């Protein structure tokens, strides 16, 4: 016996017809659904379709997931594996870090890391120039590769969403004078840029793990 799935919508909608955009086997049997799927399968996908609104990069890291999570959940790890964030120092607000993004000259970047050891999620909440509204959110998750790939190590998922502030700096008054760039100018290269940084993370963590060094280095302890 089936559960009363979508019962409320059926009642509200006044019929068993599917609502727009829902494809379930009851109303879209395979002969209807397969052509839709096949229409969606391409040889190539436009860059904007893949990276325009959401930017996801993923990789396998040969390093135990809990150790990798612990390293990443310390904001100062960004000093090592990011391409351009340097000089992390604490601020007056607990948990809020200040660093410099060398992509923009004299650009301050504020970061607060929200991590969950059970789900192994590490979310870096950041912003250029000011620490009051952290709108650049880097959502990362470390998955046990044993579960998903049947081998030791970690899978790292990293997604960034195209927040409207990437297109328009909402706090221009906080920017250093005459700065020629805005962080959103780089959105179109985030897919490649973040993958480059993820490769950094992979190389660093694997080097430490393979050579018996603690994945979280002593200086961060």
């Amino acid at each position: 016996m089936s559960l009363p799935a979508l019962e409320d919508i059926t009642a509200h909608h006044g019929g068993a017809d599917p609502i727009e955009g829902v494809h379930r086997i009851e109303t879209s049997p395979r002969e209807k659904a397969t052509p839709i799927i096949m229409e969606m399968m391409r040889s190539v996908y436009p860059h904007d379709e893949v990276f325009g609104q959401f930017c996801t990069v993923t990789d396998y890291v040969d390093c135990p997931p809990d150790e990798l999570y612990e390293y990443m959940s310390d904001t100062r790890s960004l000093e090592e594996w990011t391409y351009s964030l340097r000089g992390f120092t604490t601020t007056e607000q607990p948990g809020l870090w200040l660093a410099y993004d060398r992509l923009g000259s004299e650009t301050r970047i504020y970061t607060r890391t929200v991590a969950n050891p059970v789900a192994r999620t590490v979310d870096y909440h950041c912003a250029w120039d000011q620490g009051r509204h952290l709108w650049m959110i880097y959502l990362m998750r470390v998955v046990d590769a044993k579960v998903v790939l049947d081998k030791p190590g970690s899978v790292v998922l990293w997604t960034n969403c195209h927040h409207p502030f990437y297109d328009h700096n909402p706090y221009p008054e906080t920017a250093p004078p005459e700065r020629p760039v805005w962080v959103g100018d780089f959105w179109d290269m985030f897919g490649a840029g973040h993958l480059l940084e993820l490769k950094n993370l992979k190389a660093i963590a694997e080097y430490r793990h393979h050579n018996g060094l603690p994945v979280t280095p002593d200086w961060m302890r």
Partner: protein
Amino acid sequence: MNAPIVSLLDVATYLPGEPIGVDYYEQFAGADELRENLMFRAPKFRHHVGPDETAIDMVERAAAGLIDRHGHDVLADIDVLITHTQLPDMPFYGGGGGMAHRLGMKPNWVIDLHNGGCAAFVLGLKLARQLLASGEGRTALVAVAQNAAGQVFDQEGVRRKAQASVPGDGAAVGLVALSDRSPILDVECRTYGEYAGDMTIAADPPRKWWQPGPGEGCIGFTETKITKVLARGNRQVPEVALAVCDRIGLASKDIDLLVTNQPNRVFLRNWREALEVPKERHRDTFDECGNLFGAGIPDNLDRAIGDGQVQAGDTMLMAAFAHAGDFAGAAAVRWGGRG
């Protein structure tokens, strides 16, 4: 010393009978869950080989165009004959010997290629080029006969299936010679042997294809197989095409004429997207001829040459994959005009 230059001098083609409209299938149409599938959405027309027409007949009729333009001696002097027949008139031996005889040739080499499938013309070009360049002769003929549409796919039970309306029959010949007129710039052929078993002739109840029994043999497709083949074709054709483009130093978007096999509209769209070639420069006859399998490439070339779409100096790229993805090939030719 540089290897001698080998050219594709001309192509000629043949389509059997009058075009058969889609209404032909509507009278038989059974319930087939694949009918709405994009892979099997019917072309407007296709041609069917005649009831007593052999692959040898088809190749002879295709070669008539070469005789018209170049005279009988062009065939009599052929040194290398390479053939591909989709459904051999006799399964034990290929069609090459009979075709050579019919065309009045005494070639030193007769080779029947069965693995090339939809990319057979490309494989034939590669082999012809290699043999001529190594001194095995001055001219070669590559002959392709596609003849399953009016036979396997027109059986009483099979023609009720969605897949039956997609294939079309046709034949083509390509004249290859030691010449610098229309040089074959490069050819790439790849075999993906792990997929070789994925296309099957299935009968219900099951039997070997040659055994007697009640079920008609037809190409076995399941929904899961179809998406696998789609994914393979999506990948392989751009791969081999780009390998050729890379070696000859051509950006794929600068291909003057792209001709591919034409299994369905989805592949055609996906390949030109991948190669960044606009539709106007990707010639196809899917709606007039359906899936011509190995004859698709030369048929489209013949039309593009015949109506002036391709001009002397243009670079033509041919690319195709075969069967369920066990073979793929691409070739580039700088067209020098019909001699």
